[in-house]
């Protein structure tokens, strides 16, 4: 029965999309500045039905209704309630339903909250957004239907992957999708603005809030995903440059660039074409990311179970999106005049965009290159963390540097004296650094540069805060918080990367390993039976030889029965100054256990910095009224 309700609701949404497109097209020709009331009603009904369909699926999961094949494949009666609910979006079909939900909700909200803007523009946005909704709804119904039923109804489900039973991972997809899918609305708005010739400052104002919302959630989603990876996956890292991670990072670069360019578009009414390109590219990148992740074209630790038909459909949809946006952009393109002063703030925002595009294309090239090489020459290569670190990290130095000196330049005015002063001082710093690294021979030149610029940005931000408190000017606060957060993030990632201690060794029960500063005592093994798994718990006594501090860590090997999987739970002791990280796995057919021990300085500050960036973004959303 749930199956029929669910499918019925989706079909209703489809019909409403058609109706919306039709009535909106008719209303375009009508005179006057306000949109017909009926269109609002259609949109509201559409939202209601979509949300109801999502709740239908959730109810299916809560009740363990195995007549729905999606519930059967992804749930189990013994799963805790919270994870039953999270199972709704933890699979391909369910997450696609969430995708459709966000498309519809944002469509309605954009319609309702933008009534001060041009009618034709709003109607076209609605039309384009509904075309997107149609595309995804058809995909859902025809290929990836979460409401497919199975008969006879099985008594028990196939179970959710135990690795996915974690609170951070439960909220990670919804957060990320608001970012990913939220950018659909300004894709549609960009198309609409080209067609209805609603350009410049007004266009910027209409999409501003949506860009910021999607940026905040995208950043938060990526951060939560990294936190989860660190605490749950047992390798002590938080970013692997895995294709799926890169797929979420690509739109982030584009949205960040867009967010900054919007400032220029709104204040100086220039860069319109570039903003449109960014708006179109962001959602295109999101869909490309979805394609990479769900089609099975890439080998990754994160991929959903793959199915080639999905890939073909998404590729088709992606192609239509790219071609239609190219055609509309080229037909409606109008040449712009640019009006810049070289040392003003606009140029810095252009520079920000320049770097963002560089980072974006590097990650894109790194992720796609293996596919292209394999198709063209049948040679298989791997592109992983070393490539991305080597290409991206050196360029982070000038990027952070520019971030630090931007506030010194206000709009339009030339500030020659300060400019040359800074340049001179930084030049001194570089020369000093060269001497030092030559003298000590041990320092990594690059990481030193990273530290210099990061500290520069951090201190500059603190100075800005001091100025702010004295002058009581609110608008800059969000930028300062986010940029400070970014500086701290770069700094702490640098420290973590440079000063982390990692040891990999094999031990038997009762043995002791001495590493630099630590003595690790493998005291024993205990077996613990839990609700749906059996755990082999290791008892480790760690003695810090510098200060004689004794700590106990208990990593686990968990054996799950449904489905049969093995996971490795790391023992993590988090402190303000560092994290101690210990994982244990057994070496097959031997009494030895492979132990990975890590000491990671200031680990928790990485999360704090990332969250600070997000808080800065949310601050700006709530302080909307105090612009300029």
């Amino acid at each position, binding site marked *: 029965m749930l199956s029929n309700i669910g499918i019925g609701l989706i079909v209703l949404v489809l019909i409403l999309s058609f109706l919306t497109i039709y009535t909106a097209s008719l209303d375009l020709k009508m005179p006057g500045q306000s949109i017909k009331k009926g269109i609002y009603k259609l949109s509201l009904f559409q939202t209601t039905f979509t949300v109801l369909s999502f709740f239908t699926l959730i109810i299916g999961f809560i009740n363990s209704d195995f007549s729905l094949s999606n519930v059967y494949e992804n749930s189990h009666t013994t799963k805790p309630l919270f994870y039953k609910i999270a199972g709704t979006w933890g699979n391909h079909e369910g997450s696609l339903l969430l995708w459709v939900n966000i498309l519809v909700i944002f469509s309605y909200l954009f319609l309702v909250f933008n009534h001060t803007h041009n009618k034709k523009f709003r109607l076209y946005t609605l039309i384009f957004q509904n075309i997107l909704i149609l595309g995804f709804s058809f995909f859902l119904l025809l290929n990836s239907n979460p409401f497919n039923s199975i008969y006879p109804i099985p008594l028990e489900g196939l179970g959710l992957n135990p690795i996915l039973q974690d609170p951070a991972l439960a909220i990670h997809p919804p957060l990320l999708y608001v970012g990913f899918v939220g950018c659909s609305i300004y894709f549609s708005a960009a198309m609409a603005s080209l067609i209805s010739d609603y350009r410049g400052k007004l266009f910027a104002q209409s999409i501003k809030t949506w860009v910021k919302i999607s940026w905040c959630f995208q950043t938060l989603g990526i951060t939560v995903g990294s936190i989860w990876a660190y605490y749950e996956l047992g390798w002590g890292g938080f970013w692997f440059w895995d294709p799926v991670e890169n797929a979420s990072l690509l739109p982030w670069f584009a949205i960040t660039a867009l967010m900054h360019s919007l400032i220029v578009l709104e204040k100086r009414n220039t860069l319109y074409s570039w903003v449109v390109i960014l708006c179109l590219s962001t959602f295109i990148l999101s869909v490309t990311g979805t394609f990479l992740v769900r089609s099975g074209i890439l080998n*990754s*630790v994160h991929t959903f179970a793959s199915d080639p038909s999905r890939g073909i459909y998404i590729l088709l949809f992606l192609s239509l999106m790219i071609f239609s946006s190219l055609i509309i952009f080229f037909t409606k393109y109008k040449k712009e005049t640019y009006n810049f002063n*070289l040392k003003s703030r606009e140029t810095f925002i252009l520079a920000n965009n320049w770097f963002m595009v560089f980072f974006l294309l590097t990650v894109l090239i790194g992720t796609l290159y293996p596919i292209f090489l394999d198709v063209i020459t049948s040679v298989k290569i791997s592109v*992983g963390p*070393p490539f991305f670190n080597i290409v991206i990290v050196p360029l982070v130095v000038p990027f952070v540097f520019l971030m630090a000196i931007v506030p010194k330049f206000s709009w339009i005015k030339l500030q020659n004296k300060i400019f040359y002063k800074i340049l001179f001082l930084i030049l001194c710093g570089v020369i000093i650094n060269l001497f030092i690294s030559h003298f000590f021979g041990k320092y990594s030149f690059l990481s030193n540069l990273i530290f210099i610029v990061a500290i520069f940005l951090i201190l500059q931000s603190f100075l800005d805060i001091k100025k702010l408190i004295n002058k009581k000017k609110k608008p800059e606060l969000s930028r300062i918080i986010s940029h400070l957060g970014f500086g701290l993030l770069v700094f702490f990632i640098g420290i973590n990367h440079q000063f982390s201690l990692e040891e990999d060794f094999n031990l038997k029960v009762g043995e002791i390993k001495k590493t630099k500063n630590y003595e690790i005592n493998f005291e024993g093994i205990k077996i613990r039976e839990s609700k749906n798994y059996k755990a082999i718990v290791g008892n480790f006594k760690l003695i810090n030889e510098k200060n004689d501090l004794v700590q106990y860590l208990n990593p686990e090997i968990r054996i799950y029965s449904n489905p049969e999987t093995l996971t490795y739970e790391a023992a993590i002791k988090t402190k303000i100054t560092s994290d101690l990280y210990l994982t244990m796995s057994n070496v097959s057919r031997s009494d030895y256990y492979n132990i990975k021990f890590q000491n990671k300085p200031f680990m928790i500050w990485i999360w704090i910095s990332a969250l600070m960036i997000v808080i800065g973004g949310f601050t700006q959303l709530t302080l909307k009224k105090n612009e300029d």
Partner: protein
Amino acid sequence: MKIKKIIFIIYLSFFVPLHTNENSSELSEIYKNLRCLICQGQSIADSNSDFATTIKLVVQDLINEGKTNDEIYSFLISKYGEWIVYQPTFNKNNFLLWTLPYVVLVAGGFIILFIIRKKQV
């Protein structure tokens, strides 16, 4: 004046003692650059598989024999193909991979300069 203070603090930061743990950090670095062939996207450092265990032993032996990192990578590439290293070697296949990003960077720079210059003229 304030900037001079900042620079001074930065200058001081160079004297933070840097402890490098030569051997194990080098091993870690190599393990992280090698790909586990039977896993779905994991490095030898992160994997708990049998293959990873074997490769770790071989790498340790090679280090003890005095081989450099590059020699170790070449050796493993000759046995398993280029797929096993995460840092692509710079050869005619991967030439585009390593150069395109910088081409983009330089091209972007020129475009921006071009846009800015337009008005100055």
